[in-house]
């Protein structure tokens, strides 16, 4: 649950002080470009760009690495499977198994791309608190329902976490020790079901409380974002760079 605590959202670096709207737009475009990139040149350039953003955010490097480790633990499985299953010229054989050159290159590309996206998101999006992010998305005219889904999920995540800990404690004080047996599975199933039922009840209560305060389907935001010169400069630099990245991707022929 550590990422819910938003360890990166507080700071005074340049990346922290930029207007969240500008950061959301740039990070969004960059993520899409990276996701569809199919050349090493574009992926490497993207990696360099995201590292520059990370440097601007001046985040504790150790914590960033821990987060990247989580993503890369998924990518590890790609390294195990993809080279062996991707058709192409074999570079390494082990009995009936053969790793293809194309498979290795392809997995390397995926690793680069996903890390570049993650690093840019950590530098640009994780430096905004979720609450501010929700409001920034709203200001960017994203569907209100989606923004509120984000804000409500975030608000009540804490309550559910608390509720979860309460239930776990209630289990512990009555001597529950998890093991590999039916009793454990059943208990965990009860726990999950209880959380589900309670969250449904809670949602109902919140709805009633909102009705009592005159809610009629529209949210009003009090937050005013102020667009500063540095935000303009940031966009003026970032957008041409993203365009150049697109050009790179388009002009350089694909890897495979």
């Amino acid at each position, binding site marked *: 649950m550590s990422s819910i605590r938003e360890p990166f959202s507080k700071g005074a670096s340049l990346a922290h002080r930029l207007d969240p709207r500008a950061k959301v737009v740039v990070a969004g475009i960059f993520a899409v470009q990276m996701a569809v990139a199919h050349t090493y040149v574009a992926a490497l350039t993207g990696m360099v760009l995201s590292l520059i953003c990370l440097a601007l955010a001046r985040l504790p490097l150790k914590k960033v690495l821990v987060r990247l480790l989580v993503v890369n633990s998924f990518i590890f499985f790609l390294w195990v499977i993809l080279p062996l299953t991707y058709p192409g010229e074999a570079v390494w054989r082990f009995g009936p198994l053969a790793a293809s050159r194309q498979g290795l290159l392809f997995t390397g590309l995926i690793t680069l791309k996903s890390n570049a996206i993650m690093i840019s998101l950590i530098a640009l999006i994780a430096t905004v608190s979720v609450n501010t992010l929700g409001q920034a998305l709203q200001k960017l005219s994203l569907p209100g329902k989606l923004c509120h889904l984000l804000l409500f999920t975030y608000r009540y995540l804490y309550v559910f976490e608390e509720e979860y800990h309460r239930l776990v404690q209630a289990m512990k004080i009555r001597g529950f020790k998890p093991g590999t047996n039916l009793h454990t599975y059943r208990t965990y199933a009860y726990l999950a079901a209880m959380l589900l039922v309670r969250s449904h009840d809670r949602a109902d209560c919140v709805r009633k*409380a909102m009705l009592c305060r005159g809610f009629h389907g529209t949210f009003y935001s009090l937050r005013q974002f102020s667009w500063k010169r540095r935000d303009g400069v940031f966009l003026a630099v970032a957008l041409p760079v993203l365009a150049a990245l697109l050009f790179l991707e388009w002009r350089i022929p694909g890897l495979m």
Partner: protein
Amino acid sequence: MSEPLIEMYNITFAYPGAPRPVFQDFNFQLLPEQHVGLIGPNGCGKTTLLHLIMGLLKPQAGRIVIFGQEVSNERDFVGVRQKVGLLFQNADDQLFCPTVLEDVAFGPLNQGKPPAKAIRIARETMEKLGLEGFEDRVTYKLSGGEKKLLSLATVLAMQPQLLLLDEPTTGLDESTRHRLIHILQDLDIAYMIVSHERDFLNHTVGKCCHVHATCCRSD
């Protein structure tokens, strides 16, 4: 004598699947400027009564008249909720905005007040309750007592003519309880409090009523 704030006639209400109704031919009246405590064992219908008044639950039979107007459908109750404030038992149900100021301003904004005015009302209400400086705090990080006072602020910010409080003292420490008593004593509107704490009610209400299935009997 002036017109009652709340009149309930022959109300019948049962929760789906419950063996017997909570209220059967229930009659009740609240007069202006009255401060009433509602008491009774768990499950006798205290909270249900408040939710019926707010239109959160609909009775199966009977008439409800609030501020002299009969209310029956959702549209009528939308009007009631502008004038009657309900403080929920659990503050986490009531506070859902990211920051304190936004939460207090939520009601006034829904009432159609422009943002600047909503912020002013919110600040004034918070000041009255001794919550200055809380504006930018994040709601879920407050203590239990702070959450309770804040949810009272969110209700009072709508400037209700009648306040309903559902077990406001649950989980409060001694000093917050005293603050709450002072706040209530200074209010110049009618209110009803559901509580199990006799001592708290003695300080805040003029009379206590036992909630029964057919009526509220004076203590």
